[in-house]
């Protein structure tokens, strides 16, 4: 019974992590430099979900875990702004500024899906609680 709560919690945590990466992707939509201050536009991050077999219940129920946060490797979005302080000085893209290439629409849809999945797990938790409550009713 309590294992179901743990499983649902793993779902909640996973979806929460996913929402965090989405907000990170949206917050950094104009970040032109990386954390070391080098000129490198932000790349979107995505969590990787896998079934958590190590925590499987004897009946075969499995939770989910975030095994990795992967960084996208996509060509940046180039905008011609030769007077911009971060414009590329030489090469093919001279005079262009490299912006992060984040698909805002996809991020929002992902956020919506994560929210719904979160709600679904909360719903299952509610059912679990009801079941436990009902089981205790045997004693009455």
């Amino acid at each position, binding site marked *: 019974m309590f294992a179901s709560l743990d499983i649902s919690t793993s779902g909640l945590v996973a979806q929460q992590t996913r929402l965090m990466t989405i907000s990170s992707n949206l917050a950094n939509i104009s970040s032109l430099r990386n954390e070391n201050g080098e000129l490198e536009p932000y790349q979107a991050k995505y969590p990787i*979900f896998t079934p958590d077999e190590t925590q499987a219940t*004897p009946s075969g*129920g499995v939770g989910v875990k975030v095994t990795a946060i992967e960084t996208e490797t996509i060509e940046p979005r180039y905008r011609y702004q030769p007077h911009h302080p971060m414009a590329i000085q030489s090469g093919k893209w001279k005079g262009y500024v490299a912006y992060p290439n984040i698909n805002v629409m996809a991020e929002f849809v992902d956020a919506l899906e994560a929210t719904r999945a979160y709600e679904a797990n909360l719903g299952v938790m509610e059912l679990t609680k009801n079941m436990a409550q*009902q089981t205790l009713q045997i004693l009455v």
Partner: protein
Amino acid sequence: MIDQLLGSTTLPALEESLRFTEARHEVLAGNIANWSTPDYEVRDLSVTEFQQRLKEAIELQQSYQRPSIRGLSRSKRGDPLREVRQSLKTIRYHDGSNVGLEQQVTELVKNQLMHNTAITLLQNQFRMLQTAISGNISV
């Protein structure tokens, strides 16, 4: 004596039903938790398989054998209780997972109904025993 008293009722069968529904609830909760896991295959415990075994066990009344969940899951043909459903109900999505939320929620609710039914029957059974023990119908 108490074993005979309790064994002659439907209590053991109801107990096994509860055990099964609780185990199945865990599995279904896992399906919902893995809703957005790519390549995840829906897991389920077979209700028909459980009911079949329970029926067989009940028919062996003299030497009552409890169809324990553990015994069930390690039985013939690999793992029949954990079989992935092969039906149109579980359409595979583009990410390789086949968790249909509506289907899973329906199964969860059905499972809960089965659980609550077993509990209500258990309660009635205990109440009847209580009545028989006290010998007072008005209780």
